[in-house]
């Protein structure tokens, strides 16, 4: 027995069993801790979308536990072609290449098109409006450079134990990344 019995309290069967169970439980917890010490790390991880695996299925917009998804479209300007005819911005067969709503692909008009110089236009995502539906991402990846892609925005993500989008993700694109490098920003054009 671990503790010498207290002279005031006689050790009966119940107290002996209780003490034995406590010692056994402590040993169990100790063994568990020893096993887990190797598997545990102080460095946290967060969810992120691997853009190369993303299938642009659109489930990010609806599967998040947040009412407005934590996944938003992100623009890597460094690999953008600044096309006049942006296939991420314009829907199929637009009437005119202007900012009129009927020409736009984005259901919430979250992409702002601004003129830079002939014939280049800059496309900027207004994150307040973006719902992460991946329509523009699909357009950009099919016909453009793929500079538009989805990312988990960490100012919004609550970092669930099990990401509810990851559960339904068609490309298994959700990965855990270290918290000090929480984004997978594209640096080279990848398209499909």
């Amino acid at each position: 027995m671990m503790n010498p019995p207290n002279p005031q309290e006689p050790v009966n069967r119940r107290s002996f069993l209780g003490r034995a169970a406590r010692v056994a439980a402590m040993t169990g917890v100790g063994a568990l801790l020893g096993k887990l010490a190797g598997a545990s790390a102080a460095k946290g991880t967060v969810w992120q979308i691997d853009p190369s695996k993303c299938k642009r299925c659109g489930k990010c917009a609806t599967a998040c536990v947040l009412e407005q998804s934590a996944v938003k479209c992100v623009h890597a300007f460094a690999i953008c072609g600044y096309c006049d005819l942006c296939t991420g911005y314009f829907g199929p067969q637009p009437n005119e290449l202007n900012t009129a709503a009927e020409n736009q692909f984005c259901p919430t008009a979250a992409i702002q098109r601004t003129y830079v110089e002939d014939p280049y236009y800059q496309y900027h995502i207004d994150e307040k409006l973006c719902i992460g539906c991946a329509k523009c991402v699909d357009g950009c990846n099919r016909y453009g450079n793929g500079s538009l892609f989805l990312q988990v925005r960490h100012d919004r993500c609550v970092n669930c134990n099990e990401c509810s989008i990851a559960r339904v993700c068609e490309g298994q694109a959700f990965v855990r990344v270290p918290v000090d490098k929480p984004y997978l920003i594209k640096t080279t054009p990848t398209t499909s």
Partner: protein
Amino acid sequence: MLFISHAKTQRREGVSPFFAPLRLCVSIFLGFVLLNATAFAEQRFPPPDFESGYHLPPTATPAPRAEYMQYVDGMVLLGALALALWFVYRSRSRRGITALSIFSLAYFGFYRKGCVCAIGSVQNVALALCDSHYVLPLTVLVFFLAPLLVALFAGRAFCAAVCPQGALQDLVLIRPIKVPAWLEAALGIIPHLFLGAGVIFAATGNGFLICRFDPMVPFFRFSGSLLMITLGGAFLVVGMFVGRPYCRFLCPYGALLRLVTVAAKWRVRVTPDTCTQCALCQHSCPFGAMREPTPQKSEPLPSARRRLAGLLLLLPVLMGLCAWGGSKLALASHFAELGGWVFGAWAGLVIGGKLTALSVRHNRTDFEPDSSACFACARCFETCPSERMRRGLIPLEPVHKEE
């Protein structure tokens, strides 16, 4: 293809002749790309060289929650546990417990949005034990171990005032009704089964069942699926009349704490000195955790011993039967057969263990809480006449214990 050719005609309009070569280039390039989509997929539209001095805007990357904040979470948990122990064992204050509950609900519930939590941490630990690639966050380990160790020594102080799920249910409880003992015992099996299922699902990499079916989280986040919001609402409505329905009849971490608390060193005591056997504490307990003194003349010892021995012998038989049933069920529902065996055996052990526990003799001379069912909410302290006398709320009079 139609789409692209249309695009080219669009591009031709209104573009100055200066860009004709470029346009041609793009057209040829586009055709080329479409023919050899895989080989040249990465070079469709080279980034332009701007002449107007345009600078590329940066891609915004809002930072996640600062890393040191996980230590804050851990410290808040440990501090709240220590405070809960103080309120239960030292100041014996229901008011303190309520205040701490509100804080825990605000911090772990509404501020941390129910994640990280001790209930879900069981699954992370199970996954870390079975999958060597999974890195267990340190906070999760603390959230798993700290309440468990506290329970091992001093009962379920975590449930009393630190768990936001429990706090939410405790605060909505307005008119508790008694659950019949047989129903309480029967429903009390569910948390253990849920724990087994959650651990097996997590360990085999089939997802975090416990997190997915946590009915309180939709309230913490003000959003959730229709099913979970309905379930959460149902739990809260039921929780107005039945004390802590989730904690008692579903919470898997509660099941773990319940097991561990059987061996607790210090237990909640209702009365500071003498029990007057007034049964007021039993009426005040909304969770049916208070146990009566055992009658002097009970069942003769030999027959009780025979029953206990019979039940202990029945235990492996029950485990084997349930394991076989579980494996068949797992095959029928396309789950791993091994998981079915393990879950079945666990279910058999839980049911057999429950039957055995029900037939174990207890010798109680006073009213005392069953430490594994007691949430240490401190309600009974307020009603105990001896305790009220100690606090000076009623005048000191000699109270004689009925011999």
